[in-house]
């Protein structure tokens, strides 16, 4: 297990290194000099040069890349070109909205999908199964930001149970904060729950046909006992993969949903940064998102190896 973890850990580091290179050099080819953009078209050349030196833009590419990565490793993401504040602080503030939102949505999605998938699998081919499958077919087709607008229309504008947008912050207690994240989380969660329920159902159906399930029944377990004790555990492998993948979709999806609800998360930060050509913020946020995706997938791989020893020998 340790060997497997080390091997995967090594490739995790390689992936992160390559990803950081790609992001840095892609941003690097962007036209326009941040310093002249910040100072406007009437700036004197020597003022621009002074600012370039201050921002470290006069150094070589490789040097700047190493400084960027070295800084990130120590939690220093550099200075925002437009706000003149540390990028790390800006990202940390926004992260307190985006990350809880994605986790909240992931929890909701799992809570909806598991019962729905198990129920559909247990009633394969019957009306209940058809109803769940029909609902998931629709759930997959609904764009989450549109669903979010419908939720606002119904629950914020007509019923007035929730605010139509904005974030209360964590200072007034967890309850208030979660209340303002509830509609966004539901909007993010439902389409993902539809996918997860389908995966859960088909994974369970695969397992139900296995010999060991027949053995479990033959030794006297009821259908329900066999399903809970042996079926679910084995069905968890594909389900875990999808949950891991979904986390990255939820984090990226949160960027769009934040626009619907005017939430001050990473999404708003990155769009503001794009429009003000604050490229260091853009590259840092993108790096954080990619870091999250790669790391979560690494953790999912480790989780598999714990659940299923057979996977440790493969790569």
């Amino acid at each position: 297990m340790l060997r497997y973890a080390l091997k995967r850990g090594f490739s995790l580091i390689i992936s992160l290194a390559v990803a950081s290179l790609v992001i840095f050099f892609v941003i690097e080819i962007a036209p326009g000099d941040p310093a002249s953009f910040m100072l406007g078209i009437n700036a004197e050349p020597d003022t621009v040069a002074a600012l370039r030196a201050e921002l470290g833009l006069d150094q070589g590419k490789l040097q700047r890349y190493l400084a960027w990565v070295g800084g990130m490793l120590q939690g220093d993401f550099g200075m925002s070109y437009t706000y003149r504040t540390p990028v790390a602080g800006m990202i940390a503030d926004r992260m307190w909205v985006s990350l809880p939102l994605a986790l909240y949505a992931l929890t909701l999605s799992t809570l909806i999908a598991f019962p729905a998938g198990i129920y559909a699998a247990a009633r394969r081919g019957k009306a209940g199964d058809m109803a769940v499958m029909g609902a998931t077919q629709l759930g997959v087709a609904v764009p989450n930001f549109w669903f979010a607008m419908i939720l606002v229309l119904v629950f914020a504008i007509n019923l007035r149970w929730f605010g139509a947008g904005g974030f209360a912050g964590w200072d007034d207690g967890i309850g208030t904060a979660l209340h303002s994240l509830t509609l966004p989380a539901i909007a993010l969660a439902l389409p993902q729950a539809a996918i997860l329920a389908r995966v859960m159902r088909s994974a369970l159906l695969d397992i139900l046909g296995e010999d060991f399930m027949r053995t479990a029944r033959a030794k006297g377990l009821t259908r329900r006992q066999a399903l809970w004790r042996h079926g679910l555990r084995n069905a968890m492998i594909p389900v875990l993969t999808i949950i891991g993948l979904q986390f990255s979709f939820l984090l990226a999806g949160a960027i769009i949903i934040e626009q619907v609800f005017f939430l001050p998360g990473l999404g708003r930060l990155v769009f503001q940064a794009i429009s003000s050509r604050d490229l260091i913020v853009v590259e840092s946020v993108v790096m954080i998102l990619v870091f999250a995706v790669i790391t979560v997938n690494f953790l999912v791989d480790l989780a598999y190896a714990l659940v299923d020893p057979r996977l440790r020998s493969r790569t």
Partner: protein
Amino acid sequence: MTRNLILGTGLSSLVVLAALVSFIWTPFDHTAMDIPAKLQQPNGTHWLGTDHFGRDIFSMIMVGARTSIAVALVAVGIGMGLGVPLGLAAAANKGSWLDEIIMRANDLVFAFPSLVIAILITAIFGAGAINAIAAIGIFNIPVFARITRGAALSLWEREFILAARVAGKGAARISGEHILPNIANLLIVQGTIQFSLGILAEAGLSYVGLGAQPPTPSWGRMLADAQTMVSFAPHLALIPGSAIVITVLGLNLMGDGLRDWLDPKLRLAR
């Protein structure tokens, strides 16, 4: 399960038809503003009502279908055009450094969700339909590469491939003449799925302003425009959203139906 196929093909054809017809006819000019007639509910003249500039929503939906389909179709084309050859090459050279590089590069692209790619591209080149296509297309490459490699690997073990090798055909020729025709069904089904995901992605990108720019109508931007008016003109949000749902639902049903129809074994295997 031909029911899925019929329903899915029906819905998808409807959307494609609307897009095609929009080239020669729309009830109104989709860019023509008529402020006195703004924010009308659906009625006899304006079948789906009008927006805040008095533009005819039905016409905008028809032309918007064009944008959605064009973006998603080209993005699938990019994904297939680059992903399939890469997957074939990786499978033909299984275990070699080429295979390893292709698969690792794929893993890397997977770490950049299409939205993140779009953000990077827009940060550099600015927003626009072409960049949306590139973002969705790049994300499609590893999807097709992976599925092609997986399917091709199992074919390489088969006797008819061995026979072809004995006959003296090289790896490239075998991939083209024997592997590709045998995985075409799989690719068509995956293409349908990626097409529907592309429609959703395009809508999302143009909603946040990274997709097609005005005056090109797109369903995502119609939704973005509708957002501040949803309390007094809900039809502005309901109609483009329904158009997206119908299109995606149709394509997904068609994909499911095609899979069952083309390969009953696949259904049992799932």
